[in-house]
């Protein structure tokens, strides 16, 4: 941007960014801040296709597959037509990939997938998964997901991710061979259980609270926006009736006929223009939705941290109790209540040999316990460190992206206003000829 040097900043150029361009802005940002993966290859989800086949219970089903294309960057910049690596994947395979990443990198705010079913729809928009508009928006969402992962400093170097992009057959088996599923199941169980942490980390608690708020407010915004879109559609479409009536009226008038007829055409154009306007707004809604789902990913990280913290606290508690037991056994004092202790009091003390054996066992357990505490402590520290780095990265990304979204929303509104001005000026000219 040339430095004008003057105090008055002229309104700069182009206010007509199309949604395609604003999405390119996003991609360019991801590539610029680039990871080594993105420096090597270009990734895109180029097409979507319908397939039919037999599913797990041997029934016919129709599903959509998406074409993932990768291209080595160097070849492209040399201007030669590079050989594209391309393979087809279903939405469920994307889900599998994401689940794998969630389990393998619990500290990471894992980019979300586009929604499984259309939600927050306004009535003209189809909620049908097979609807071509929905499939197209999903294609864009899936491409965005891959690019997000590919630009993540940690996730981008994952082998399974690389194989996802390059291997069509056998990828699923490879994923399952990592045994992540078992880890996933146990994690899921633990996360779903209710537990309370004694000394919650303030920062993570605040983050979780923020995630809650973000999710709530974006949901509300999407709902309100969908309803407003519905209403706006009605306003524009009713103007189409003007077109019809003007045309009919012009038939019975002599001098007014031409003016009325042409004004009517502009009213039809006005009514039709709302379709494009609302389609563009859907892109904006999709950008909001991505961060709606990101909010959930953020909360998941905070929850996982809580779990890690809890497990540490449990280990410490366990160790402390074991140490106490040893002390009691060694000094003969009973501070902690135990049934054995009571019965031995009632029915007589143990023999020195029994005590010896017990002490020995406790010692081993204490050793193991201390190891575990050390491990868990390290785990916790490691988690906190990596998670906080990723959260900071996420915050910056979110602030930048959402600001871009708001700007593109403003640009959309401007475009809509310009169209309105044009149509009504045209109509006015025609009315003047009445």
């Amino acid at each position, binding site marked *: 941007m040339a430095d004008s040097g003057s105090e008055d900043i002229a309104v700069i150029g182009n206010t007509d960014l199309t949604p395609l361009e604003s999405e390119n802005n996003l991609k360019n940002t991801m590539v610029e801040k680039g990871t080594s993966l993105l420096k090597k290859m270009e990734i895109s989800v180029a097409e979507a296709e319908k397939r039919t086949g037999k599913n797990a219970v041997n029934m016919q089903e129709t599903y959509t597959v998406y074409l993932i294309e990768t291209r080595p960057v160097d070849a492209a910049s040399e201007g030669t037509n590079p050989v594209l690596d391309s393979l087809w994947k279903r939405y469920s395979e994307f889900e599998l990939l994401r689940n794998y990443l969630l389990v393998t990198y619990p500290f990471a705010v894992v980019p979300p997938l586009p929604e499984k079913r259309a939600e927050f729809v306004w009535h003209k928009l189809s909620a049908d998964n097979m609807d071509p508009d929905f499939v197209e928006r999903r294609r864009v969402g899936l491409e965005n997901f891959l690019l997000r992962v590919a630009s993540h400093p940690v996730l981008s170097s994952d082998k399974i991710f690389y194989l996802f992009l390059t291997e069509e057959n056998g990828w699923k088996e490879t994923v399952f061979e990592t045994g992540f599923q078992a880890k996933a199941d146990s994690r899921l169980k633990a996360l779903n259980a209710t537990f309370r942490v004694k000394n919650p980390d303030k920062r993570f608690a605040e983050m979780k609270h923020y995630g809650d708020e973000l999710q709530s407010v974006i949901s509300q915004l999407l709902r309100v926006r969908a309803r407003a879109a519905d*209403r706006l559609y009605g306003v524009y479409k*009713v103007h189409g009736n*003007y077109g019809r009536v003007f045309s009919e*009226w012009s038939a019975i008038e002599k001098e007014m006929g031409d003016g009325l007829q042409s004004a009517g055409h502009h009213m039809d154009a006005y009514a039709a223009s709302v379709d494009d306007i609302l389609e563009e707004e859907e892109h904006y809604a999709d950008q909001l939705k991505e961060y709606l789902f990101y909010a959930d990913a953020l909360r998941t990280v905070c929850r996982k941290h809580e779990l890690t913290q809890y497990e540490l606290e449990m280990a410490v508690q366990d160790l402390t109790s074991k140490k106490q037991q040893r002390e009691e056994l060694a000094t003969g004092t009973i501070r902690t209540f135990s049934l054995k202790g009571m019965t031995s009091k009632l029915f007589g003390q143990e023999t020195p040999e029994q005590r010896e054996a017990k002490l020995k066992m406790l010692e081993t357990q204490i050793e193991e316990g201390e190891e575990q505490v050390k491990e868990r402590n390290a785990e916790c520290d490691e988690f906190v460190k990596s998670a906080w780095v990723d959260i900071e990265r996420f915050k910056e990304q979110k602030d930048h992206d959402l600001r871009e979204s708001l700007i593109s929303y403003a640009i959309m509104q401007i475009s809509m*206003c310009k169209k309105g001005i044009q149509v009504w000026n045209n109509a006015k000219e025609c009315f003047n000829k*009445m």
Partner: protein
Amino acid sequence: MMSGSVVDNTVSSGNSSAAIPTDISGQILDLDEDDDLEVFSKDTTLTDGSSFNASMQTSPASMINQYKFEEDADTKDIFVTVDNPESHVTAIETYITYRVMTKTTRSEFDSSEFEVRRRYQDFLWLKGRLEEAHPTLIAHPLPEKFVVKGMVERFNEDFIETRRRALHRFLNKIAEHPIFSSSEDFKIFLTAASGELTSHKKQGPGFLSRMGDTVKAVAAAVRGVRNRPQEFTEMQEYVEAFSQKISSLDKVTQRIVREQKEYLEELKECGPTYALWSQSEEELAEPLKNVAGCVDRCCKETEEQVKNLSDHLIPVLHEYVLCADTLKAVLRRRDNIQADFEAKTEALATKKADRDTMRNDLDKAEDRLEWANNALKSDWTRWQKVMRTDLRSAFVDTAERNVSYYEKCLAVWESFLHSQRTDAEGNGKVDFS
């Protein structure tokens, strides 16, 4: 001998109207313009005012020929306003009066400025008198007695204001009409004190003579017209179609207003949601608050746009819906005058007694018919021009308001963009090149 052909003089359709005045056009013509009527030649066909008979300078018929269609503001010599509604409470009723102010340079007025108070009933009376005197001239409609749809009280502010504007337009249209504006009743309406007006209203044909005329009128109406000239049939067809189209436009516009109001309801929730969001954010707080402000401003503009449509376009369309009804009534009255003439023609041919009287009646009926036809034809042309002007300017006005609405919203969002761009460049964050 006063012959009466009674004409259907209902003021507006769909409502129970005040007493239907009988047509005493025959009497009035005989009293005031008898001389002129004899001069009036049956051979002169007056179509769109292009032909001009010098000998009839002072007759009302010639005035139809004479007036210009495009009147400059310079030649306007009477200005009427209706404003200042006030409510009056008596033991029997509560009603509203409006101030009617007149400024004029016309010599037939005693003074150059007048201020009187009139109620809706008075306007109804005036319209009735004008239609009695000129059954085939086209009078601008009055606002309806009460709004049929919706529970609008008579004393609701919006209703009063809408009515006031319509009454203002009505009087101005009368003042601009070449024939109506020189009516004695119009003059009295504009100038007389309330007491004077009341006593003037009481004059007019007696109840009994009105009854007699009614019977004859019903007979004529039942008989129907036999040989309606093609041009009047064409007029009727046009009026039918026009009535349908303008009603549709009225309905479409009302629907647009409804849809916009519902859109506004939803939009009103957007701004506060963005504001709520800004409370959870740090970096994003400023742009979010900014967007919230923009959405709120657009809401205000939308609200005003809705009001504009309701205040400006809808009343005009509504008046022309009523106009269509007036036109139908005028055509009916013309038909009845013709039916009366045809009946008298037949009577003369068949009956043997009273031939002289009947011949006289027939001549009068023939004159009346010719007068009615010519008056209608001229006024039809005038009305079409006025209609065209009114509707054209109403739609142009609407288009301009829409443009202005979008321009204002555009400015709102451009200022947001501007703030974001200067912000970003200030922070050295994003390159917008």
